[in-house]
Each structure stands twice: as C-alpha cells, then as structure tokens.
C-alpha cells in the first residue's frame, strides 16, 4: 500500500485534483500559434478529443487490517468494496490538436493533471471518456522506473535501452554516446545508488533520449542537472523537434518552457485554461 501511495504521488503531484468549482474552459483549441523557433508543418500528430481520466486511489490500510489474511478473505467473500478507495477525476474534458514540429509546454499548479495528461497521450493510462489519437507511438521520457539503484550505471544503460525496446545492436551503438552525453565518466562502473542526484538525473535523461521518438513527452526531466547539462538537453530537445517530431514538455521552470516551446497549454484543475503563444499564456499564468 505504501508503495502504491508513493507511486501515485509520483504520478500525480502532491495534491489530488478534487471536483471543485468549474473553471473557464477554453472553448475551442486554437490553431497553434507561430512560435519563436519555427512554424509547425501542419499535419496533426496528436489529437486529444474531450479526454477524461479518472484515477482510482487506494488509501493506506488502517492499522487493524494490515497483513491479516483472514480479514482479506472475509472482505472478498462479502464482496465489500475497499473502504479507502476514492476516485480522482484528474483530467476533465481536454481537447487540442498538436502538429508536426510543435514543442508544447504544459504548465499548471501541482495536481492540475499535467503528468496524467502526458501519460494518457503516451497511451499508458486508458481514458475514462474521450480519446487520444496519435501518429506513431508517443513515448514518455522516463526510463527511471526500469532502472535499479543497486546496479552499476553500465548495467542500467543496457537495461534501460532494452526497456525502451532497442535491439542489442542499437544498444552497442548507443552505449558510448549515452556515457559521453551524461558526462558521468568512470562513475559508470559504480552502482547508481552512489550517484549524486544530478548525476542520476543526467544519466536518466541520456538513456531515455538516446532513442529517436516521433512524439516525445518530457515530464520535469530538466529540473535537475547543472547549467551546462541543461543547455545540452535543451539542444537535444531542439534536435528532436527538427527531426519533425512533436515534443510535450512539463516543467515548473517557466524559463525553460519559454526558451524551448512554441506553444503553451495552461492546465487548471484538469481543464485547459489557456492555450496559445508562450508569451501570452505565460504572462497570464504568472499573473493569475
């Protein structure tokens, strides 16, 4: 249970989005504004159509229930629902169209449904209502979950590459590139549990961006790492965009979004509050 709660908070941000007073929904997704970097080519790659995502949340079991096989059995036999189960409506009717060459920043407070939206686009969370249509397989930049802290960086690179679906030949080809890009040098021989948080983040970003993606979803990957590494990763995101892909970027650092994105979606309590040119949206976001 503890594992679950931890997992959920990781996925969802700290505060669950509660059904509250409705906010103004952006009525129609505007065509993407021409960004500062380049213009989208006009073919849609991701279409999100009135998407609703509902999470089931299991709270921590109360003290007297824990680990008792008899209680669990009687509960199942009596067909009682789990008392701590709650439903969280994390994304409520989001619609937009993303195009080739778009780099879309997603902003919003903790618990506004940013991470959930990204996971739904990646096809990892089934929609409760509505649908997500994509061209090719969008992938989340998040190989972390496959890596094991007790293992060396070397083993983790191989494991992470396989987890993303690479072939042994591709792994051999990319291995040195990943080590170089992450800049962890001889630490690659040590277990990842000995890494500093910055080094870990760098290795993770290096592994997950080693694969070419059509649609790439990045969730807070750039928050860590030093300035030099940040520059490197921003450059890599630009490369991905130039190879005619689409990039979604969730970040709390608005500067990163302003520099890399040509369009910004502002999520508030699971709904789109604004969608458009980064300058306008970010100005409104910082104000309100």
């Amino acid at each position, binding site marked *: 249970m503890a*594992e*679950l709660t931890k*997992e*959920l908070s*990781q*996925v969802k941000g700290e505060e669950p989005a509660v059904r509250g007073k409705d906010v103004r929904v952006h009525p129609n997704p505007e065509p993407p504004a021409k960004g500062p970097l380049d213009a989208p080519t006009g*073919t*849609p*790659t991701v*279409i*999100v*159509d*009135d998407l609703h995502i509902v*999470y*089931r*949340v*299991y709270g921590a079991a109360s003290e007297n229930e824990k*680990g008792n*096989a008899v209680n*669990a*059995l009687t509960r*199942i036999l009596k067909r009682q629902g*789990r008392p701590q189960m709650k439903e969280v409506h994390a994304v409520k009717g989001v*619609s937009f*169209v993303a195009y080739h060459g778009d780099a879309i920043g997603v902003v919003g407070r903790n618990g506004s449904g940013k991470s959930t939206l990204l996971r*739904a*686009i*990646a*096809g*990892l*969370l*089934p*929609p*409760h*209502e509505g*649908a*997500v*249509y*994509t*061209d090719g397989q*969008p*992938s*989340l930049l*998040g*190989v*972390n*979950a*496959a890596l*094991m*802290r*007790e*293992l060396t960086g070397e*083993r983790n690179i191989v*494991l992470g590459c*396989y*987890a*993303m*679906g690479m*072939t*042994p030949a591709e792994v051999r080809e990319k291995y040195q590139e990943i080590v170089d890009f992450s800049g962890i040098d001889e630490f690659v021989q040590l277990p990842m549990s000995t890494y500093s948080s910055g080094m870990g983040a760098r290795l993770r970003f290096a592994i997950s961006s080693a694969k070419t993606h059509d649609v790439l979803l990045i969730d807070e990957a750039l928050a860590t790492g030093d300035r030099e590494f940040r520059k490197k990763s921003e450059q890599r995101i630009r490369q991905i965009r130039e190879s005619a892909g689409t990039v979604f970027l969730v970040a709390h650092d608005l500067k990163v979004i302003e520099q890399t994105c040509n369009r910004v979606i502002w999520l508030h309590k699971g709904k789109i509050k604004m969608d458009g040119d980064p300058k306008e949206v970010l100005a409104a976001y910082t104000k309100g």
Partner: protein
Amino acid sequence: MSQPESAVADAQAGGRSAQEPLAKLAQRYGLRRAIARPRFHVYLRQLVERRHFILTYATSRNVSKYSSSALGQLWQVLTPLLNAAIYYVMFGIVLGGRDGVVNYPAFLLTGIFVFTYTQRSFTAGAKSISGNLSLIRALHFPRAALPLAYTIQELQQLAISMGVLVLIVLITGEVPTWYWLMIPVVLVLQTMFNIGAGLVMARMGASMRDLNQLLPFITRTWLYASGVFFSIQDKVVGSAELPQWVATAMYLNPAAAYIEWMRDILIYKHIPPAMVWAPCVFWAVFALGFGFWYFWRAEERYGRG
C-alpha cells in the same frame, strides 16, 4: 469505463464523429487511438521481440536482489535447505512422515525444491504487475514481459538449487541412471506451467489488491496438498483412511505431479506411470495457453490503478 474492444471503439468513434470534428480529423490523417490491444498473435510476436529486455530484467533483478546481504546468492540455496531441516525434524521424525519412505532426505528435498519453484513463481507473478506500476505507467512494452521475467528469474535461481539437489541425492546414496536425462523434460514442463500460472496470478494480482495477503494461505494449503514431506498414498489412504479418490485428486494437482515425476527419476528409478506424466503435460500446455490468453485479455487495463 474499461477500454472497449476495438470493434466497439470504432463504432464509438464513428458515432462521435457526427458531432465531434476531432475524431474525424484523426481519421483523415490516419491517427490511431493511443490505447488499443494488439491481436493475440501480434502480441506474442511483440513479446518475442522484447526477449532481450525480459532476460536482462530477470538477470538484473537477480543481481540486485542479494546485493545488500552478506551471503549474497547463497541464500537461494540456504533458504530451502533450512526449510528442509525444519520439515525433516517436525514432519519426518516427530510426526513420523519418514516411516515407510525410501531415502526420506532425498524424498523431502526433491519435494521442497520442486515445490518452491512453482510456489515462488506463483507469488512473484502476483506481484509482477501490482509492484511495477511506475514502470507500466512510464514505458511501452507488452505487459506479459513482466510476469515472464519474474518466472525466468525464478528459473535462474532454480538452476542453482537443482545442482544442490542432485548433489544431495548423490550423497544420500542414489546412483545416477539414464532416467536422469529426463530431468530437463520435467523442468521444461514445470516452467511452462509456472509461466502460465504466473500470468494468471499477475492479472489477478493487478485487480485484486488483497491477493498478496491471501497468497501465503493458498500456498501453505497447496504445500500440504502436494505431499512435499509425506507420501500421499500412505498417509491419506493408509493412515487417515480417506477414500482413494482424495489421494488421486491430490496426485493430479500440478505441484504434486511434478514432484512425483522428479522423485521417480531421482529416487525410484523408473519411467513415471501415465498417472504422473499425463497431468504434468496437461497442466503445462493448459496453463501456458490459458495464461497468455487470460493475461492478454486485460492488456490495456494494467496500470490503471
């Protein structure tokens, strides 16, 4: 709402496109729904393509599992041996399980090692999805890769235990015979069964969160029903004077069947009767086929929470 079958999904998308231009736009550009369950044969092929991930994941888990304990992988052998010692004293000597059994130590150890393999695959399978939600929510791969990797991890551990088992059987005075060539056959069949059972448990464990609390119960019962430390025929029909069909039913259970076959090879030195090999083959084929099918049916729902 669970994810509808693709036919239903198409119908829904079609129905919506009358009012919703977005679905139509998606259709025009040939965009597909992000979540769709592949057809069964496609799914199996995707799984084969992921074999490197499955193997690496299993090995990595094995390496990291014991990295914090001083004795390391030795525990794989020590745990069943310590269990065997307890059972030997309790059930063999105190309760008289060894009476009338040829070479009781070898009999007991064969039972424990074979049973442990199935039991551990079972328990690991139940946790393979529910314990890996973050992985499932982050990456795309056929979800059956996880329970499969967990069973392979157990198989890798079994390789070591089998070596110890053969050694002990030799020490207790048995001599190798040509029948020993059948050991891999039994292990392949048992592995097939374990993979299937692991897949079934994985799906059940993903939706029934209380399963992990119940499992010790189930496996304990199974342990007693499989004649791990006593001869089923002697105790159930002989001492307890229960009807013969009870003993027969116990012998037909997969764990007992694999144990019996292994004992026939290692201790009794004869080809197993049809009563033994037929259930072994049946359970292997049935569990593997049903397991994959049953697991695949819920493929798009794993990770929902």
